[in-house]
């Protein structure tokens, strides 16, 4: 049963991600990305980490993708090609080659990392309890408190930066 669900969810996740890249309509890309996130969340449930699954949906599929959708709707980009004028800078031959090299590096890293996983258990170490809300909270605020706080500062910096960039100087 679990195997069946795994393949189903994995298929959704992979097909969704492929769809995101190959869709010409940015609206469809966003929707497919949401499908992919939801499938990932399902995989987390199968791995015995329901909390991570719920957070995945609330933060990624819920909050962040709504903002994506918002931007796409407000810009009203009907088709990716409509952006061609402004996108030429990153659509040229040079950046494309650079991107190709980067993706190959990423592929190599993934193969290396996944090959090390051979035979590793799929469930969280320490069983179900290790994935519980309490354990994650303790880890986050005790063992990784510095990293956690640093991340929040990083996000704050990004937010302030966005406001500074978007703000029009009033005389």
């Amino acid at each position, binding site marked *: 049963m679990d195997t069946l669900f795994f393949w189903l969810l994995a298929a959704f996740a992979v097909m969704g991600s492929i769809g995101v890249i190959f869709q010409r309509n940015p609206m469809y890309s966003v929707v497919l990305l949401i499908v992919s996130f939801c499938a990932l969340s399902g995989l987390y449930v199968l791995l015995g980490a329901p909390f991570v699954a719920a957070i995945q*949906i609330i933060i990624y599929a819920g909050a962040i993708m709504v903002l994506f959708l918002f931007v796409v709707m*407000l810009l009203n980009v009907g088709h990716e090609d409509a952006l061609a004028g402004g996108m030429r800078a990153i659509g040229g031959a040079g950046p494309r080659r650079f991107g190709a090299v980067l993706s190959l590096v990423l592929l190599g890293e993934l193969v290396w990392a996944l090959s090390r996983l051979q035979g590793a258990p799929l469930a969280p170490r320490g069983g179900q309890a290790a994935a519980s809300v309490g354990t994650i909270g303790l880890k986050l605020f005790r063992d990784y408190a510095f990293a956690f706080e640093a991340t929040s500062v990083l996000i704050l910096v990004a937010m302030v930066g966005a406001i500074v960039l978007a703000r029009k100087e009033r005389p």
Partner: protein
Amino acid sequence: MIARFFNTLAGWGVTAELVAHLLIIVVVFFILQGMAAVLVYMERKVAAFVQQRYGPYLVGPRGLMQPLADIVKLMFKEELRPKAADTVLFYVAPLLSATAAFAAFSVVPFGADTDFSWLVKYSGLSSVLSWFGVTFTGLAQPIHLAAADVDIGLLVIFAITSMGVYGIVLAGWSSNSKYSLLGGLRSSAQMISYELSYGLSFAAVIMLAGSLSLREIVDMQGGYWFHAIPKWFLFLQPVGFLIFLIAGVAETNRAPFDFPEAEQELVAGYHTEYSSLSFSLFFLAEYVNMVTVSAVATDLFLGGWHGPFPLPAGFEWIWFVVKVFALLFFYIWMRWTLPRYRYDQLMEFGWKYLLPVAVINLLVTAGVVVTMGW
């Protein structure tokens, strides 16, 4: 013959618990659907009462068959789709809305654990079964009265409601109409803004209960203070309850916060271009969402199935139903009493008043929980 049939089923691993669980899921689904009809009638009658009219009274006794007539009328209308609309998303959007609405209720517990002996006893089921030579007086062990009992139920509800936004946003975009788009944009902005206060009012209760499971939160509210006042979180979290109610109205897009479908400004908002059954799916989703918000409020703040006085074992869910209907009445009452806000007022209220109050409420609760060691 019947007895042999049951024995064969048991041989396949079909236990009475499994059947009961499947039945609960089916019953919850159909009751939720039926609730839409009940609420349509209730809404029209309460609206009529508030406005000193009669309301529906022609179809059936006291107009009770009116929702049925409404549904039949909707079913026989023509399904229209604007030529410029996006075909796929135009049809996916209402499905998404309705699915999210139903899915959110699946983790809401609505009664104490039960073995259904009361149902078997009072419905005469056991005598019917014994006539066929089958003895059944109730399940061997009590099961939870919820479609799905999840440890992190509250987070699941939060996650699924955040998915419900997409139905509205995609409907607004795919219709390719300016009113729909404006309605969709407004609703997403509104839901994002009020989701924060909504979540923070949850968080205060989670702190008090120390659990994310709705069933455990309800169980903590059993019993009485001074043998008289039920131990509801309402009395510990009055501010949280108020925030939850207000944010809940905004989340379900009901008046006085019904901007996504403000008639005077946007025709009908995000569902302007929808007709027939796809329109009715949005309609259904709105009412089911109302039921879910009321049910969650009941479980979180009003003690779920724990009432001011205990009911006989097995009938605790009656308290739950009574409280949910009281809250639903409150929602309908609000809609027909209060005028709609201005859009900027809505945003200002959400960000400048509701959110700070919710944060302070959370901080005070956290302080009390830590110092008093709740």
